[in-house]
């Protein structure tokens, strides 16, 4: 027996988003998404629904790692560190909202520059909303290590952001 296709629909954005952030390439992310959805369809029913999210993300992360080993995509993909000038054209009106959206862009780039497993931890916790327990399960880490790593990852993000964003651009 296979899962209902609605379960696949429920997980598709999660898989694709994680793969895009991990691989930095939408084409590769599409391949990974397809592969993971097929596996979810075939095996998902054997997974406890409460643990399915962690299972899906673990399978997705492993598929991304496999693809990187095969393609070395990550080497080809080197995110450029943005400067505030890069956004001057996109945000001609320097109102509060534009500043806040700029911060988001800087944050996304700062996340991209994190090494593994810090990047996965931040993405899964802050964007995908996983609990510490789910994080530990997804990344095969002890719970205590998961928390320590996540704190370290956030500290690195703050440091990167403080180096990239001029102090006056930060909201008081």
């Amino acid at each position: 027996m296979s899962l209902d296709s609605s379960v696949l629909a429920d997980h598709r954005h999660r898989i694709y988003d994680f793969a895009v952030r991990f691989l930095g390439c939408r084409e590769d992310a599409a391949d990974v998404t397809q592969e993971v959805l097929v596996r979810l369809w075939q095996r998902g029913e054997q997974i406890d629904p409460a643990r399915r999210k962690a299972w899906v993300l673990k399978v997705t992360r492993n598929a991304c790692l496999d693809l990187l080993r095969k393609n070395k995509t990550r080497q080809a993909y080197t995110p450029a560190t943005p400067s505030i000038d890069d956004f001057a054209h996109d945000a001609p009106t320097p109102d509060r909202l534009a500043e806040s959206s700029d911060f988001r862009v800087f944050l996304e780039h700062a996340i991209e520059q994190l090494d593994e497993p810090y990047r996965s931890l931040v993405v899964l916790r802050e964007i995908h909303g996983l609990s510490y327990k789910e994080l530990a399960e997804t990344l095969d880490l002890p719970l205590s290590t998961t928390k320590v790593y996540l704190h370290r990852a956030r500290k690195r993000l703050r440091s990167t952001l403080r180096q990239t964003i001029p102090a006056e651009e930060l909201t008081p």
Partner: protein
Amino acid sequence: MNTPLITPDCHEVMDRFDSYLDGDLEPETARQFEKHIAACPECAAEHKVALQMTTAFGELELEPCPDDVFERALAQAQASQNGRVDRPAVASSPQPRIRRWRAIALAATILLVLGLGSLPFLLNSPEAEYSAEEIAQARQEVEFALSLISDAGRDAGAYIQYEVLAEEVVRPLHESLNTIQ
């Protein structure tokens, strides 16, 4: 005087930002934390970034999976399922030939070992004249051989499926025996 002054207290504060923001610090520790931030520009700047980061995380959204990617995946998943259902039928032509050959070879070997060389002749000549005693004797021997084949078939399960053996060897032998009675 523009160089930020980072004290050992700063390191402790920066290491515990997440605990502070999560409200995990003891009230007294949190109070000292706030006191330090109020007096230290370096940690105040860190605090500002931390707060803004928390807000921005809440605003980040999942990049949606394009419809065509999902539709392709769904089609592939359904095709893989059909493939699994069809596989036994598709594979049934070449595989059982091997199984059948093995089963017959096994049966022939057992018959040979048991000295039942006359059996094929007996089976191939149903109209020949045999005494009731000879037929009863042959039947006993064949049934004994068949029971051995069945056991051997089960033991050799990795190679020969018992059902195949029953279908390909045991039943034809029984039918042959019935025709000569």
